[in-house]
């Protein structure tokens, strides 16, 4: 569907960004792993994404903030091809994933891990089966190898001291435990790109901190590119390298966390202040 072959119709829509010739987008870029251009998505009469442009930085924690119903989850689903846009392009390491057919998309999805907003654990499978699911589907590993990796993750996510957790079913877990099991399932195959849809919403402060640290450590230890949707401004500025605000179907501001915090735009100010965040937290890495 994209009507642009090699010669470039220059994207004049985003004055904030230094213009990039379209031809460059089809080559892997050392800095930007995912580049989204002119993304449009409608659901019936509702125009959710309106020509959205966004770059995701490789190996960094990229946070997307924005009000409820602004289309953050929809945007994230486009990154994995779970939704197809009406128009626009999404380049992952230079490959436009929008026109990909199922089989190619399936291959590409191995690069990604996704933590769903409501965990999306498989009801009919217990905790171990849920976490091990990507390994069981993709490789022929022995039971012991699988269990070793599952237990390691349970430990890292503070789930190992919950009695009998391994044999529990999702319905028997608390919301926070479910989220962490979902996180474990996304992490177990060590993806290159991790998408987190509100990983800490609904967790208590201690669990929030643990998940934040988990995201930080995964990002730093494995050099994973993280895309995190968050409502939690405190953790946004604690762990975020880059922050982008989604507003009315477009990215209103994007940049290093500290810059965005101080951006003058009214929606950003409102969002930051409504979150009760008056003082920029210390120790934000530039």
């Amino acid at each position, binding site marked *: 569907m994209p009507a642009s072959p090699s010669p470039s119709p220059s994207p004049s829509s985003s004055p904030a960004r230094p213009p990039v010739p379209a031809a460059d987008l089809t080559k892997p870029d050392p800095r930007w792993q995912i580049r989204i251009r002119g993304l449009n998505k409608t659901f019936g009469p509702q125009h959710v994404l309106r020509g959205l442009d966004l770059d995701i930085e490789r190996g960094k924690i990229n946070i997307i903030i924005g009000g409820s119903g602004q289309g953050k989850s929809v945007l994230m689903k486009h990154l994995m091809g779970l939704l197809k846009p009406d128009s626009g392009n999404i380049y992952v390491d230079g490959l436009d994933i929008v026109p990909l057919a199922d089989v190619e998309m399936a291959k590409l999805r191995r690069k990604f891990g*996704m933590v769903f907003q409501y965990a999306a654990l498989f*009801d009919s499978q217990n905790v171990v089966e849920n976490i091990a699911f990507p390994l069981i589907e993709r490789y022929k590993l022995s039971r012991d190898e699988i269990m070793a990796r599952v237990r390691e993750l349970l430990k890292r996510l503070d789930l190992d001291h919950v009695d009998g957790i391994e044999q529990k079913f999702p319905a028997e877990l608390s919301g926070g435990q479910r989220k962490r099991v979902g996180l474990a399932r996304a992490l177990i195959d060590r993806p290159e790109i991790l998408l987190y849809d509100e990983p800490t919403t609904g967790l208590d402060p201690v669990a929030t901190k643990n998940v934040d640290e988990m995201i930080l450590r995964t990002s730093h230890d494995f050099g994973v590119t993280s895309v995190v949707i968050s409502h939690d401004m405190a953790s946004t500025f604690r762990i975020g390298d880059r922050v982008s605000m989604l507003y009315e179907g477009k990215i209103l501001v994007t940049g290093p966390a500290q810059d965005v915090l101080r951006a003058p735009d009214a929606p950003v100010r409102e969002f930051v202040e409504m979150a009760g965040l008056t003082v920029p937290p210390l120790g934000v890495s530039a």
Partner: protein
Amino acid sequence: MNEASSVPVPRGRLAVVGGVLALPIRGFFGYLGDHSMMLWKALLWLFRRPFRPRLFLEQMEFIGVGSLPIILLVGFFSGAVSAQQTVRALKLFGQERFVGATVGLSLALELAPVFTALMITARAGSGMATELGSMRITEQIDALSTFAVNPVQYLVTPRIVASVVMLPIMTMVFNAIGLIGAYIYAVIIAGVDVGSFIEHFRYLTDPSDYLQGAIKAAVFGGSLSLAACYQGYNVRGGAKEVGLATTRAVVAGSVSVLVLDFFVGDALGTFFPFQS
């Protein structure tokens, strides 16, 4: 620009009326088309790797073992009730000894496959629609895709195949228990002679009658599970929509069983002309 193109261009009154009348017909064929599409995909994925035998066995267990008590109960009473009615009718001619044959035949050709399919639609079909529907709204189906698992292959194919396999088996169970019910009523309660009950049954029913019943049952299994999977898989919205989808799955499944019963019965009639 969307609105402009969707406003109908004024045409002759006849065309408008025709268009309105065509709507349900278009809807019906769209509906059939969507179902065929899902069936086709489910069949294609049956032959692609990876094969997951465990999923098929789980579904066979759900349909078979799970429905066994209700099939036994309904089967027993269907057999007993048809024996009751048949004995009453045949008594008018003093021919009660044919009760075994009559009940056996109607069980084999009609009662067992249809009742089994209706019971399994109510129990397993509704279960499938609810399960797939809640998997859809809680994004479990999306989650499957993120692990590069094809959701139709993972969810729909095993359910349809298991239904096609299990329905004939459960139908035979229904036949057996139905005959026991008929025997108990006819021989023990109504005092029909045991020897002639069995003799006429064996003489007048034929393996091909059971084969026809089994073929019908397999077709019903396909249609009821397809209806259930289609409704569940395509849920949009929340818990309420899952409930609606389940209701639609049971209605569509039952209707498809009764409608197909006519057509498959007709087709089988030409392949297996009435003998003996």
